[in-house]
C-alpha cells in the first residue's frame, strides 16, 4: 500500500499502516467538506458587515444554518439540463471541478510532527510528496477542464464566452503563479510543502518577508486562479449572467459552488503554508504539537478574510486588462523575482 501510493510520488517521512491512510483520507474529505459551509457563512457574514447589514440571520442561531439551507435548497431543485446540451459532458464538468478542487486538499501539511495514535505515528497531512507543489499545480490545471467543458457543453453563448474567458485566464495566470513560487523553491531547495514550512521554521522568518514580491504575485494569481474578485470574469454576473455556469442549476450548480469554496480554502491554506510559515508561531518555539493544525487553520482564515475583503472592495477588471496585467506585469515581475532570488541563493560574491 505504501509502495503503491507514496513511493512513486517520492520519498515519505513515515511509512504509515494502510488503516491510518484510509482514516486520514476520510478525515481530509470530511474536514474539507465541513469547512465549506463554515467559510460560506463566514463570507456572507463578513460581506454583510462590510456592507452595513447583518448578513444572514434568519436560519438558525445568527444564521448559522444558512449555508445548509442554501445547499439543501440547491440539492432539492430540479436537475435542469438545457435542450441541446451535451448530456454526459454537462454532468461530468462540475464533477471534474469538484474532484480537482478536493484533490489538492491532502497536500496541505498541518504538522510535520507525527501524532501518536494508538502507538502508531501518523503524520498530519494527506500526502507529503517530494513534488507536492507540482501536484498542486497539476490538479489546478485539471480544474480548468471543469470550467471549459461546463461552458462548452451547455451550448449557450454566455456559457461559451465565460468558458473561453476562463480557459484563457486560468492558463495565463498559472504561469505567473508557478514562477512566483520559484523563489520559495530555490531558497528551500525542495518542492515538498512540509520542507518549505520547515525551512521557514529553521530560518525564523516567514517567506512573506524575503519573498514579498513572490507572495504578492502568488496571491494575485491565486485570486485569478480561483475566480475571485477582481478576477471573477468568467462568472461576471453583470456581463455574462453567470459565465460558464449560466445554464447550471440545482445540484450541479451546488457542485460548482462548493468547488469554488474548496478552492478558496485550499488557496488560503496554501498561501499560509508557503508564505506564512505554516504551523509555526513566531516567538514561540516550544508550542505543543496538537495546536499545529489549528495554527494552520487560523492563518488560512486570515487569508480567506483578506480575499473576502477584496471582494467587498474591488470592482471587476475588464478581460483585456486582466490578460495584459497577467502577461505584462505579473509574469515579468515573477521572472525578475526568481532571478534576484537565484542571485541571493547562489551568492557568487560570498
Amino acid at each position, binding site marked *: 500500500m505504501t509502495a503503491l501510493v507514496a513511493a512513486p510520488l517520492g520519498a515519505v517521512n513515515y511509512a504509515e499502516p494502510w488503516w491510518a491512510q484510509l482514516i486520514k483520507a476520510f478525515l481530509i474529505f470530511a474536514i474539507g467538506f465541513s469547512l465549506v459551509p463554515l467559510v460560506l457563512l463566514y463570507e456572507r457574514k463578513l460581506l454583510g458587515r462590510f456592507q452595513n447589514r447583518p448578513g444572514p440571520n434568519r436560519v438558525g442561531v445568527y444564521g448559522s444554518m444558512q449555508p445548509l439551507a442554501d445547499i439543501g435548497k440547491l440539492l432539492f431543485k430540479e436537475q435542469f439540463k438545457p435542450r441541446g446540451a451535451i448530456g454526459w459532458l454537462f454532468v461530468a464538468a462540475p464533477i471534474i471541478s469538484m474532484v480537482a478542487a478536493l484533490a489538492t486538499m491532502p497536500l496541505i501539511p498541518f504538522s510535520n510532527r507525527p501524532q501518536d495514535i494508538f502507538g502508531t505515528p501518523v503524520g498530519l497531512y494527506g500526502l507529503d510528496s517530494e513534488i507536492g507543489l507540482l501536484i498542486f499545480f497539476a490538479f489546478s490545471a485539471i480544474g480548468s477542464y471543469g470550467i471549459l467543458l461546463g461552458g462548452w457543453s451547455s451550448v449557450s453563448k454566455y456559457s461559451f464566452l465565460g468558458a473561453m474567458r476562463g480557459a484563457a485566464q486560468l492558463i495565463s495566470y498559472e504561469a505567473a503563479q508557478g514562477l512566483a513560487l520559484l523563489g520559495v523553491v530555490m531558497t528551500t531547495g525542495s518542492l515538498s510543502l512540509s520542507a518549505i514550512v520547515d525551512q521557514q521554521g529553521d530560518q525564523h522568518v516567514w517567506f512573506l518577508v524575503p519573498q514579498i514580491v513572490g507572495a504578492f504575485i502568488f496571491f494575485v494569481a491565486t485570486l485569478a486562479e480561483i475566480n475571485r474578485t477582481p478576477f471573477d470574469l468568467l462568472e461576471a454576473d453583470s456581463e455574462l449572467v453567470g459565465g460558464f455556469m449560466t445554464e447550471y442549476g440545482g445540484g450541479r450548480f451546488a457542485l460548482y459552488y462548493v468547488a469554488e469554496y474548496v478552492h478558496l480554502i485550499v488557496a488560503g491554506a496554501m498561501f499560509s503554508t508557503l508564505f506564512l510559515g505554516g504551523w509555526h508561531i513566531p516567538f514561540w518555539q516550544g508550542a505543543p504539537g496538537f495546536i499545529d493544525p489549528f495554527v494552520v487553520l487560523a492563518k488560512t482564515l486570515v487569508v480567506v478574510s483578506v480575499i473576502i475583503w477584496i471582494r467587498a472592495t474591488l470592482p471587476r477588471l475588464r*478581460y483585456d486588462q486582466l490578460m495584459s496585467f497577467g502577461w505584462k506585469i505579473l509574469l515579468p515581475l515573477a521572472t525578475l523575482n526568481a532571478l534576484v532570488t537565484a542571485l541571493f541563493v547562489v551568492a557568487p560574491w560570498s
Partner: protein
Amino acid sequence: MSSDDDKRDGPVPEDGSAASADREHDSDASTTERERGARVADETSATTPSASTPGQPDEGGGRSTSADPEGASTGAPTATALKEREEDWETIAKRYRADEATIDFSSQLGAVATQDETELLTINMGPHHPATHGVLRLLTTLEGEVIRDVKPIIGYLHTGIEKTAEDKAYWKAIPVVERMDYLAYYFNAMAYCGAVEDLLGVEVPKRAQYLRVIHLELNRIMSHLVWLGTTMLDLGAISILWYAFRERETVLDLFEYSSGQRMHTRYFQIGGVADDIPAGWADKLQRFLDEMPTRLDQYEAMLSKNEIILQRLKDVGVLDAESLQAWGVSGPLLRAAGVPWDLRKAQPYSSYDDFDFKIPVGTVGDNYDRYAVRIAEMRESVKIIQQALDGLPEGPVITGDRKVALPPRHELATSMEALIHHFKLVTEGMRVPEGESYYPIEGPRGELGCFVRSDGSSKPARVHMRDPSFVNLQAFGDMARGEYIADMIATLACLDPLLGGIDR
C-alpha cells in the same frame, strides 16, 4: 379608403431571398383584407373605416410591412368592426404563430451582421439580463468580445400611461404620470403639474415652489444614488450599492415623513403641493444635508481613487458633444461632454433662479466624466436644498384659486361656497382652458418635458411625456460600438436608462 387599399400591395418583399411562395402568401392575404375592408367600409360610416390589420407581422423581421399606411385607417370600432376584428384575431393568431417560427433575427442586425463575417456572434442580452436595468433587450453582435453592433429593443414595459392619463381628470392623472420614470416621480409630477398650471395660468405660491425644489433635489439625489449603486454593481463593486442605498433610504424616509409615501408620493398638486411639511421635518432634512457631503466624500474615497474603477471608466463610451446633441441627448450625459446646459439655469422654473449653484461639466464625455458629473451634481443638489431650506418663505403651500385647489378642510364646515367648490373638484375636476403646453424641466436624466393639450373639458386631451431615457437611448449604439462587452455594460449603466421612462 380605396386609394389606400391599392397601396396595400406595396410592401412586397424586396429581398431577393424571399421565396416566391412568400409573395403569393402576401398577396393572398392582402386581397382578402382588401375585400373585407371594402365590405366594412360599406357597412360602417366613413369615419369608422376598416378595423383591418396594419399589415402582416414582420416576416423578415426587419422589413417594415407594418409601415403600411393602411394601419392608419383603424378607426372607432363599432360593433361590426369589433366583430370583424375578432375574426381577424383568429387569422392573425394563426399567421403569427407561423411567422414566429420563421423569425430570423439576423436580418434585424443591420449592415454589420450581413457582411460575410463568420466570426460574428449574436447575443440577445435581455430582456432578462442582470445588467440591462430592467427589461431592455440588446441585440448585440460580437466579434470575440468586441461589440460590432448593438440594437436596443424596447417596449417590454409599455403600460400605456399616456393613454390612461387621457381618461382621468387632471388632478387624478398625477399619480398615473408619476409612475413612468419610477425613480424620478417628483420630476414627472412637476412636469405635468407645470404644464397644467401653464394652461390654467395659476400662480404657485413661493413656499410651494421652494418645497417643490427641496423635494425635486432630494429626488435627484435619490435617483443618482440608485444610479451610483447599480452602476458600480455592474462594474463588480458590490458594496457601494449598499452604501448608496443607505442614503437613499434616508431620503425615502424624508419623503414618507412629508407626504406619507416613500415612492410615488403624489405630493405635488396642480397649483402647489399637497400639504405643508410636518413639524420636525426640517430638522431631519438638516441632519441629512449635514451628513450627505461626507458620505459623498466617502464614495469618492472608495471609487474615484480606485485604479480599477478608473481604468474601467476612463475613455470608455466616448461620444462627442455634437453627436450627443444630434441624438437629442440631454442632462448629465451632455454635461459630461462639456456642454453646460441645464434648464434650472437656462430657463429657470419653480424659483430655481433664487439659488446659487453650479453646473458640473466634464471635458471628455467618457464614462468617468458621467460618473464625476453625477457625483458633483449631488453635491450641488445638497447646496440647493440647503439654500431652499434656509430661505423657506412663509405662506400658503397651494394656490388660493378655488377653481383649481381644494379649499382647506376647516372651510367646509363654514362656507357653502367652499363646499360647492369641493364637490365640483372632487366629482368632476377642474376645467382647464383650451390650449397646448409643453413644460420642460431638468430631470435627473435630462430634459423631462410634459406636453398637455386641453380641449376645455375636465380631462386632458393629450398627455405626452418627453422622457430623457427614451431619447438618450438612441445614442447608445454609437457609444457602445467598438467596446468590449464589459465596457458596453458600463456604458449602458452610465447612460442611466430607466425602462419605466423609456417604455411609459
